[in-house]
């Protein structure tokens, strides 16, 4: 019996190797040309809003199309967020791109991001969100080029934490004070 199970375990290892090879093929990604910097914890009360700034850096020698590159043929930079339930991400604001021309098209101005840039967004937990820390994940989709070539659309993953604090106590409608039984007029 021991021999049989040894063979079985060996075969499982073989299967694992084959599966890992498959996954290796599936995970064929282009070389990243944009990096996301770490983001500090965003602290916000339930029912309120806070702004998160997401810093990115384009590798030297490369540029990526801005959010509004000016041609429908060009692939814009777009932030996609996947927040947990009860936390909304709204009002995503992209910086204005730089108008640059390149050797491959000196007469044409392209609207791009190069170097460092920030994308900001509003974080808004609902009033009923339980206090605690929540992780928000997402990605920035971009398409990079250098002076001689362009690279397939890619994405850089993003993650930041939101610390939700208790919502401020609800102010109740003021009622008329009860008439004091001790006051007699």
């Amino acid at each position, binding site marked *: 019996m021991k*021999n049989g*199970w040894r063979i*079985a375990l060996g075969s499982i290892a073989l299967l694992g190797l084959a599966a890992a090879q498959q996954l290796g093929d599936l995970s064929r990604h282009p*070389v990243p040309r944009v990096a996301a910097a770490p983001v500090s914890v965003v602290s916000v009360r339930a029912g309120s809003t806070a702004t998160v700034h997401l810093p990115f850096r384009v590798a030297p020698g490369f540029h990526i199309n801005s959010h509004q590159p000016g041609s429908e043929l060009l692939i814009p930079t777009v932030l996609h967020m996947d927040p947990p339930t009860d936390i909304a991400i709204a009002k995503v604001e992209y910086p204005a791109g730089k108008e640059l021309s390149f050797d491959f*098209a000196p007469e*044409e101005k392209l609207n791009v991001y190069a170097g460092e840039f920030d994308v900001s967004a509003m974080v808004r937990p609902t009033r009923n969100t339980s206090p605690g820390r929540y992780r928000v994940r997402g990605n920035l989709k971009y398409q990079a080029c250098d002076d001689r070539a*362009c690279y397939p659309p890619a994405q850089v993953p993003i993650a930041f934490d939101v610390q939700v604090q208790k919502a401020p106590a609800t102010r109740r409608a003021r009622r008329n004070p009860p008439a004091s039984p001790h006051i007699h007029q």
Partner: protein
Amino acid sequence: MEVDPNQPVQEMPPAPPPDDGGNRSAIIIVVVILVVTGMLIAGRHMARNGGSAGTPVPAGNNVKGAAAPDFELTTLDGKKLRLSDLRGKAVLLNFWATWCGPCKIEIPWLEDLQKQYAPQGLQIVGVSMDDDPPAKVAKFAQDQGINYTVVMGNDKVADLYGGVDGLPETFYIGRDGKIVNRVMGLVGHKEIEENIQSALKQGAGSTAGGQ
């Protein structure tokens, strides 16, 4: 307890060998695993070479003299094109996309060169790496006045040609189906023309090749 001598003696079934059940289960598991592993490996092989044949070109520049891997792709007007159908011609295989700025610079040059060298046996083939539907690429091609064959590419063919990470990437293939040169990124008109002339010379008088 008394034993009735008339009652037939019940024979106990022979005890199974202690390891038999376990071994049988293990063998079944092994067979299943080997079959699944074989299917995975076969699937991977088919996925990599689906609709295509030949040894993939390695990444990098050391590809001169290698046989250009064959493939079958669909043209913008819905026809099938196999690279091997072009055997005997010099082929400029240009990977490009509508969203690629440097690619657009090359397009008018390629149009002129197609016109100029077609009588000598040149065929330019643009392999669009767009994810957009062919109709959008076709409109772009029409707007640009592209006069050479354009096919819709895919990752499998890109893998056959070394991954094609950046665009444009151009392979110059001789009449014998062997790669004369690979050029990554935008280069000047003169360099493109020189590579075309080399491709036209290679394999002239011979159509045997690896396509």
